Structures are given as C-alpha cells and as structure tokens.
C-alpha cells in the first residue's frame, strides 16, 4: 500500500473496433494519488491523452459507486482487480504500489465482442433476461404483502441472488467464458419466490437455451466466478439452476 503519490506503468488494451486487431499499449503515469479510484486514474490518463491530441481510452462506467455493473476492466489477470467483492470503480489506487505495472484488458468472450478499447458489448446478457428473466403479472394494485408469506431464509437467498449487477465478471474470469453464475442468479431470484413459480420451469429452459445460443462456454465448476463476483453470488445458484433444468426436462410435463 502506498501513502505518497505513485508513479505507474499502465499496459492498456487498445482496439479501434471489433473488426480490427488490438494490442497492449504502454502509458507512464506520474503523481497518482493513492486515494483515487481506478477509474479516476483512467480519467487522468485520458485528460493527458486528449491534451496530447491522442484518442482517449474508451471504457464503460456509470454510477461509480459499485451498484450499476457497467465498469468492466480485467486488471492484472483478474476482473475488477485484486480486491474481493468490489467493482473496478470501487477499487482504489492504494491497492497498488508505487512503480507497479498494471495490465488492463477488456472482458474476453466470444459472446462479449469488443466495441472499442476496454468496452465490450454485453447485450447477450439482456437477451438472456428477455428470454425469461421476468414474471408475467397483470397490472393493478399491489397485493397486501401478508397474502404472500415467504420464509425468511428463502427471502434472504432470493435477495442475495438479486444482488447480481450483471457486470459479467463471472464470464470474464471463467476459463470457459461460461455465463452460468449470471444466468443462475437471474433464475434463482425468481425461482425462490412465490411470484416466480408459475413460469419457473419454462423460464429455466428458455434462459438456458438463450445462454447457449449466445455462445457462452460450459461450466466446469472451477468456482472462479464465485471467487471473483463483486456481489458474492454463490455457486448454490448454479446447482439450483441445474436442478430446475433437470426437473423441467425430466419431470415437468410442460414443454417449451
């Protein structure tokens, strides 16, 4: 951990668009405050690049408070960098040392094509959600909450699954670029609650089919996704999805 200001060497992936090949480009940064966030450090770099008349590095970001799931940098071989349970925007330069070389790459997966530099297209996730990650309810007044008693354990598990911000770190770190942790969280948050039951087995089949169609890899249970997830989404969700998938295919009489 550094206390004074730091000098860093950045190796950043630069790629014009999805059609061209990219490469790592070296940048020297001087006098970086350890209190800066990782993205603020990139802001400094970009201002310098703009002042020199060069193209700034394009990267995704939005809320910068760890809840939107937009930031997506693969830092020194790990999604969202070296700290557990944080997103890139919540990673601070004090987690690095003066003189460090930091390699920054985009998420790499066939299903997440690079748009430019560090920005990838994650709309594959949107299409998985659109395939069934919702409940169909008629609009109208909200019911009295006491009409739907939910055991506390169940509610907590659903809430923990719902903490997924869809950043794609699970896909990025998985050696197979598998999206199982994301999809299972989105299935579990509904499968655990009464509102999700009517479409439970239809949903798991549709979402898994869409996940496969998007070209994500197959899960090999290495557990890397769970270890790197900034929201601590559990592998239990994957087991639940597999169980629901088996029930849907071999027990449920409804076909999709």
């Amino acid at each position, binding site marked *: 951990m550094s206390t004074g200001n730091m000098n860093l060497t950045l190796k950043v992936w630069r790629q014009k668009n999805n059609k061209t090949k990219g490469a790592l480009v070296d940048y020297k940064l001087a006098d970086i405050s350890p209190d800066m966030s990782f993205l603020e450090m990139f802001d400094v770099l970009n201002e310098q690049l703009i002042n020199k008349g060069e193209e700034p590095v394009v990267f995704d970001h939005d809320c910068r408070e760890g809840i939107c799931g937009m930031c997506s940098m693969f830092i020194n071989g790990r999604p969202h960098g070296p700290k557990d349970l944080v997103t890139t925007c919540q990673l601070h330069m004090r987690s690095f040392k003066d003189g460090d070389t930091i390699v920054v790459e985009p998420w790499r997966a066939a299903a997440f094509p690079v748009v430019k530099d560090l920005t990838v297209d994650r709309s594959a996730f949107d299409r998985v959600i659109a395939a069934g990650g919702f409940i169909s309810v008629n609009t109208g007044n909200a019911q009295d909450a006491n009409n739907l008693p939910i055991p506390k354990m169940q509610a907590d598990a659903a809430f923990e699954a719902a903490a997924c911000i869809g950043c794609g770190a699970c896909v990025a770190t998985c050696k197979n670029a598998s999206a199982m942790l994301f999809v299972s969280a989105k299935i579990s948050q509904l499968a655990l609650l009464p509102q999700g039951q009517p479409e439970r087995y239809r949903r798991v089949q549709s979402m898994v*089919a869409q996940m496969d169609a998007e070209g994500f890899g197959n899960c090999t249970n290495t557990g890397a996704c769970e270890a790197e997830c900034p929201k601590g989404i559990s592998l239990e969700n994957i087991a639940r999805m597999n169980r629901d998938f088996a029930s849907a295919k071999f027990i449920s009489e409804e076909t999709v």
Partner: protein
Amino acid sequence: MSGFGNAFSSSIGKKFIMGITGLFLILFLIVHCGINALIFLDDDGLKFNIGAHFMATNWIIRAGEYVLFISLLVHIFQALRLTLQNQKARPVKYAVNDGQANSKWYSRSMGLLGTLLLIFLVVHLKDFWVVSRFTGIPTIDANGNENLYGVMKEKFQDPVRVAVYILAMVSLCYHLLHGFASAFQTMGWNHSKYNGIIKNVGVWYSIIISLLFAAMPIAVYAGLIK
C-alpha cells in the same frame, strides 16, 4: 413425440452426462480397487485370483464391463466436445490471467489430467485387460485359477512401468479431487446440510483410492508382499 427437447444437448445437459458417467466411473474404481487390494492379504494372490476369476466370468459383471467402456468413451468424447466449445467461447486469450487467485490448478486442468489418464489407460489395458481377455494368462495358481497375480508380479518388475503407474495415480487423485464434488454440483445436489459431507468424502475417496492403487506396483516391485 418426446418432450425431452434439448435435455442432453444443451450446455447443462452435456454436463449431466459428464456427471453421470463420472459418478459411474467413481463407483467402478471402488470395485476395482477393492478386488485388487486382495493382493495385500499376502497369500501369493490366491484370493485376488478368485476375485479376478469371478470378475472375468460372472455375466452381470461382463455386462457391466460394456456399460463401463461406454461410460468411459462417452465421458472422453463429451469432454472433448465441451473443451472445443469452451475454447471457441474465448477466441482471444488474456495477456495476463491470474487463475490461481480464484481457483485450484487441478480444477482448471481436468483436460490435461484426463489426457494423462487416457494415455495411462492404454498402457494399463494392454498390460492386464488384453492379457486376461485375449492373449491368455500363462500360469495357474494353487487353486487352479488363472494366475493374474503372476502377471502383475511380472509386469511390476519393470521400474519404468512402476513409475508410470505412480504418476498416473497422482493424476487420478487430482482428477478425482475436482471431479467428485463437481459431479454433485453439476447434478444440482448442493445442499447446505450435505455439502460438507460431499466435499470431505470426495477428498478422502480421492486420496485413499489413489494411494491404494499406487501402493500395489510399489509393494510388488519392492517385494513387500509375496
């Protein structure tokens, strides 16, 4: 019309096949290891040869042998298919990827470990299975049974072969360390009350099976058993 749809062709379905065949192979190893461990009775392989004779002649076991080979082939081919698909899912590799920060090396190397085991299997089947099924076991023991133990004693005089067998058992141990618990997770058998048991049984199973198997060529080579 069957309603099974893509039950086995989807990504999860393919994993079910890996899990089911893997669990069957895990059960097979218990039987294989149990019968082989009869050599440690130190009776010049008499009990072991009785076991081997039973395994070679009982029709249920012989039928099971077909299931075993089919499971093995399916496990291998499915793994190849999954691996090729997984490689396509990440066409551009990372320049820096710190895998050891988030997962075990053997969990990430199941393909490599499996390939080593496959190479070993070719050697192993040639050493014993081909001899007992096709070329014939040359001697009989005091009970009049085919002396498979004699074949074992002869084969394990070769230190290179003993080393190959030991290395293969190291691969087997790591392959099982991931595979055992992984199969349960794939099948969806994840439950807070049983997860600890599954994990512990998996670790002990992997270590005990591999150690027992590795002890056999060592004991024969070192002349620790008659």
